[in-house]
Structures are given as structure tokens and as C-alpha cells.
């Protein structure tokens, strides 16, 4: 039964269905409606849950860390500056193997301050040890949340999961959303059974020092865990499909790639723009497809290597930048396909930073440019008059 719902409110309803024990968050645009809606759900007695308003994102992350360590299913949501402020806690949470679920409403990072969408915020935590999922649309985003708790809490995983949704583009869009029933979600996602937690009945110590004699092995264990997560992610989607009839899963998604010579690679809601453009270009006879990176961590290197083993040209379309560095998606992708025999050209473009509209023409333009020669970290959609003005 579908219900037209705003993206953030849909996420809030989905999270509520997962029956978190503790929610803690701090207001930041464009994430705010999630916690507002959850606050109202709790205030109306519809969800029995400790909803904790805290004084900063740093404390929001720390509060859910503490709650998770004490055995609770814990959730927080944030965006942009808030995520950066959480940074130290996020590394710590991952290192402590705490299965918190975090929604990030992807937004640009200051300076200059900008509340609109790009991926710069979440990209900054890609090394931290979080599982990172990127939603293409709001149904996908809701379904990711049910699965996120299941994956995070899997005994083989025990890691935080971050669900990413593009600010405004998804967060504030109204779409018909199919919500599962509470009974079904209760079956899909039983009560959290932590392997180990803070308890006076079993007094144990958490967060010990790891000296030079142990630290390397601890990090190795995490790296090994990441190698075994893909099957867990795939199974969560398969189980979801069995119960709810729709497949919302996969590490990557291939769109019209069967005979594609050129493949556009991207994440999140940008995929919809690319698919539309690909449909248009296909009509004109161009052999072009789209590869969606749905899960950024663990990075689906093998899947990407395979998917790009036949094409001639790859174009990464990125909404984040490593200033002074190579394209972020492009570098990881080139790393994955480095030894492919077909060795496609790889271009990458920076688009849509800080909420700049991504137009279909921009996509046509970047394909055209890449066809003329490899482009690296090239900006598309610039207002050149403004660039000149700023140069003065």
C-alpha cells in the first residue's frame, strides 16, 4: 500500500518500523525532518524509544555509540558539517564494532557555507570503517534502512552502516512509498541481540588500548571483515525480496550496459539523471549505459571490474572533489579495472557541487567531451562569467 510521502518523513517512518531503542540527533538542514518526525512519533506514543536531544552532532554520535555499547539498537541522522563534527566518533564507533545506523542527507561542506546537495560530506568518512550505501530514490532509501540494521547487526559484521540520500533532491521530494507492515518488519528484523554489551551482570571492559603489539592485528581483523560483508548485503536484499516482493539490493546496478561502448558511472540520485540522458542518447543510436555504485564500502571492486570488462570508455560523474587530488570515484574505479584487458579510457567530471542543477545538457556535454579525449577532474556546468569575475 503506497503512500505519497516526503523523503525525510519516509525515512523517519521506516526507521520507526525498525524499532530503535535509542535515537539521538541534532538539527541540521536538510536532515532535520527525519528527527522531527521521529520526535513526533515518539511524542505521540507510537514508538517506545528514548529520543535524546543533544547539544551537538559530536554528542549525538557519542550518545548512540554509548547506547549501542550498552546493547540498544541505536540510530542517528545528520548532514554535512554535522557529519564532519562527528568524524572522530565515527572512526571510533567503527573501530569498536558498534552496529549503529546513520542516515546522511548529503550536503556540501563549508567554506563557503552551502546547505544544498553534493557528496562531499559522506566522502570524508570513506576510510573510517563504515558500510556506506547510496540511495537512488526514496523507495530504495527506505528499503536500505530496513536492510541497514540487519546488515549492521549481523554477527559477522557488527559495524556501523551509513545510508546516504542526496539533500533536497531526495530528502524533500514527495514520492509514493510502499511501507511494509510493522508485523512483517518485526519478522524481517528481530530484536537486536548484541554479541556482547555493557552489563553489570557480566562486567567487561570495552575500548581498551591497542599497543604496537596488537593494533595491526585489530585493523587486519576489520579489513578481513570487510571482505566478507558483500554476501551479507546480498542476502539481506534477497531475504527482503522474499518477504516484500521487491528487490532493493545489489552492490552495483547495470543499466543498458549489455552492448555499451561508453559507461557512465555514478551514485545516488544522479543515477536517475544519467539514466534519462542515456535513454535519450540510446534513441540517437549511441551505445551507452550506466553503472550505479550502490554500495561504496565495501567497495565492489570485483563487480565493477567485471561490469566494465567490455566497454571502451568510462565516465565517472562525481559530486565531490579531493582538492589537489585525483577524482575520488575515478581513482578507485581505475584501481579496480587497472588490469582489465579492454582497458577503457576513464574520464571524470565534477558536477552539481553545492546544489548546482544537473541538466540533461550537462550530461550530453560531458559525454561529448570524453569522446574527444580523456578528461580529468573537469568541472561541468560552470558559469564562466562568474568564474572570470571571481578571478579578479
Amino acid at each position: 500500500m503506497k503512500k505519497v510521502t516526503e523523503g525525510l518523513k519516509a525515512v523517519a517512518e521506516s526507521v520507526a518500523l525498525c524499532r530503535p531503542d535509542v535515537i539521538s540527533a541534532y538539527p541540521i538542514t536538510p536532515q532535520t525532518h527525519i528527527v522531527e518526525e521521529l520526535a513526533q512519533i515518539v511524542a505521540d506514543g507510537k514508538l517506545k524509544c528514548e529520543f535524546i536531544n543533544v547539544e551537538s552532532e559530536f554528542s549525538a554520535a557519542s550518545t548512540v555509540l554509548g547506547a549501542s555499547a550498552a546493547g540498544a539498537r541505536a540510530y542517528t541522522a545528520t548532514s554535512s558539517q554535522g557529519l564532519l563534527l562527528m568524524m572522530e566518533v565515527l572512526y571510533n564507533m567503527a573501530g569498536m564494532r558498534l552496529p549503529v545506523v546513520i542516515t546522511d542527507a548529503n550536503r556540501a561542506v563549508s567554506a563557503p557555507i552551502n546547505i544544498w546537495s553534493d557528496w562531499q560530506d559522506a566522502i570524508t568518512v570513506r576510510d573510517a570503517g563504515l558500510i556506506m550505501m547510496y540511495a537512488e530514490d526514496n523507495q530504495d532509501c527506505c528499503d536500505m534502512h530496513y536492510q541497514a540494521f540487519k546488515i549492521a547487526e549481523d554477527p559477522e559484521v557488527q559495524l556501523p552502516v551509513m545510508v546516504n540520500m542526496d539533500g533536497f533532491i531526495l530528502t524533500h521530494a514527495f514520492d509514493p512509498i510502499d511501507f511494509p507492515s510493522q508485523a512483517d518488519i518485526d519478522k524481517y528484523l528481530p530484536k537486536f541481540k548484541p554479541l556482547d554489551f555493557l552489563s553489570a551482570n557480566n562486567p567487561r571492559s570495552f575500548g581498551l588500548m591497542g599497543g604496537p603489539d596488537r593494533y595491526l592485528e585489530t585493523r587486519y581483523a576489520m579489513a578481513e571483515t570487510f571482505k566478507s560483508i558483500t554476501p551479507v548485503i546480498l542476502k539481506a536484499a534477497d531475504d527482503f525480496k522474499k518477504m516484500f516482493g521487491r528487490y532493493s539490493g545489489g552492490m552495483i546496478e547495470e543499466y543498458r550496459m549489455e552492448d555499451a561502448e561508453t559507461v557512465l558511472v555514478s551514485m545516488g540520485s544522479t543515477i536517475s539523471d544519467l539514466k534519462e540522458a542515456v535513454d535519450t542518447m540510446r534513441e540517437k543510436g549511441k551505445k551507452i549505459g550506466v553503472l550505479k555504485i550502490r554500495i561504496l564500502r565495501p567497495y565492489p571492486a570485483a563487480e565493477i571490474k567485471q561490469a566494465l570488462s567490455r566497454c571502451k570508455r568510462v565516465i565517472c560523474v562525481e559530486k565531490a572533489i579531493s582538492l589537489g587530488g585525483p577524482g575520488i570515484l575515478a581513482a578507485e574505479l581505475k584501481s579496480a579495472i587497472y588490469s582489465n584487458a579492454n582497458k577503457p579510457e576513464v574520464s571524470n567530471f565534477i558536477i552539481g557541487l553545492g546544489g548546482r542543477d544537473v541538466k540533461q545538457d550537462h550530461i550530453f556535454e560531458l559525454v561529448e567531451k570524453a569522446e574527444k579525449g580523456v578528461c580529468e577532474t573537469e568541472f561541468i556546468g560552470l558559469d564562466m562569467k562568474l568564474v572570470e569575475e571571481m578571478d579578479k
Partner: protein
Amino acid sequence: MTTQTAENVKLFNSGHTACAGCGLALAARLVLQATGPKVIVVNATGCLEVFTTRSPQTAWGIPWIHSLFENQAAVATGVEAALRALGRGDEARVIAWGGDGASADIGFGGISGMWERYDDVLYICYDNEAYMNTGIQRSGLTPFKGHTSTSPAGKVSLGNMKQKKNIPAIAVAHGLPYVATATVAYPKDLERKVKKAMEVRGPRYLQILVPCPLGWGHATSDTISMSKLAVETGLNPLFEYIDGKLATAMTVKQKPVEEYLKPQSRFKHLFRDAAGAEQIKLIQEIANSNFAKFKVEAVK
């Protein structure tokens, strides 16, 4: 998660690696003796975390967690919320603790937030008056004119220029139902205050002065006498505020501050010349003003 079961049933084992004469190790043991085993402890980064939990060993016989240097308060909030949410409210009470740096400086924003939320957490600041774990740098609780490596006595400086941040007063201003100070030379007073704090619901604050022979520069055998002199000189008055009102203060016969300052190398630059003597007068004034302020009836 890195976890470890304590090897025996003591709440705080002697199997730690604290320095000789460490006031802090003593305080930790006294606190847990007073609380008993039904507590969960959240520990900020610092000496106490370092000398008790070098993986895979732990000195703790109670459930214990360390996360970061500055988030102990918010982690405690989360633990406390989880216990309530999971219907485990009777299982344990939550204690957060950290040193003076973690409490008065880097973690203070989080503590203030926790106090404002009015969470049922006992916060204990073990105050050794500097960042001892990183090698004796100045904190907000470093005493006036104390030498530390970042408030050094030098040719144009006479040590720390600021008075000790008054966290107990700030805690009272936050509306806390229980605020107290203690020190290791008075273990019964300390124990009583911990027990009293555990009877109260809501946020509570206890600041325990713990001499650090290494950082203060006194003999390791002088830990207790330094702790006592801090009280007797009036530089570290012992008191309790209940519901915002001064409820008890320990009465002692006042001693001159020199008796406390002289045995500690962190004050030795004050004993060199007339400029130092002037500073000692100012320190005596601080002590006198504390004596005037906390002249209330003795502990019953």
C-alpha cells in the same frame, strides 16, 4: 568490540600500571568501594584509562567503557538511555569520569550538555591539575602560578596566569542537585560523598583532588600529605552543595600556603625572589577567600 573479562571479582584490581604514589589510582578504588558493583563506568581518555587497560589486560571488575577524550558525558547519556529503553534501569547506575583536562576543558561542552539534559549520571572529575597523561601541560584546573610545560615559568613568565576554573560553581549554576569536592587524604569523607551522590537522581558532580607526584614534583610518599595540605591551606576546600545550597564544608585549622607550595617543584620558581614572594601573597589571598566562603558547620 574489544572486550575483556576481569580475571577476578575485585571492582578495581591492583593489576594496573600506575606510577608510585598515584592519587588517582587510590581515588578510583575508593569510589568503587563506595558504589559497589552495580555501576557502569564511562572513562575519558587519560591516565586512568591508560594504566588500567592495556589490551588484553583490564584492571576493572565493573562494566567499563572508554571511547574518546571528550565524549565521556555523551557516551554516558547513551548508556543510561539504553538501560532505560531496554528495561534494565535497575541493573546499574551510570558513572562518567575523566581527568581535569577531559572535564574542565575538552569535554566540558559535552558535560554541560549532559547536565542541561538532566541525565541520571554521576560525573566524577579526578583533578590532578594538569594534563599528566601527555606530560604535564596546563589545563583549566591548573592552579594559579603553577608551572607546567605549556604555562612554563620563564624569563618573562611566572607560570600559569589564570585561576583554577571553578567547575563546582559552574555545576551549581547548571542547577545540579548534588555537587561536591573531595580528596584522597580524607577517604571517609570521599566515601560518604560518593554514597550521598548515588542516593540522588539526576546529574551529579564530584571533583576529587588527586596528587600526582610526577606532575606536581613532590615525593611519591607525600601524596596523602599534599592532598591534606591542599585542604588545610584552603586551596582545595571540601564542600557539598545540595539543590544549589552549600550543605557542608569541612572545617580545618588554616595553614599558610607555603607549607603546601614549597614541597612541590611546580611552585619552586615562586621561592626564588621577591617577584615570586608577591605571587605567593596572591595565592594566600585565594586561600583566605576560600576560607571566608566555606566557613559553615563541620560534617556531622
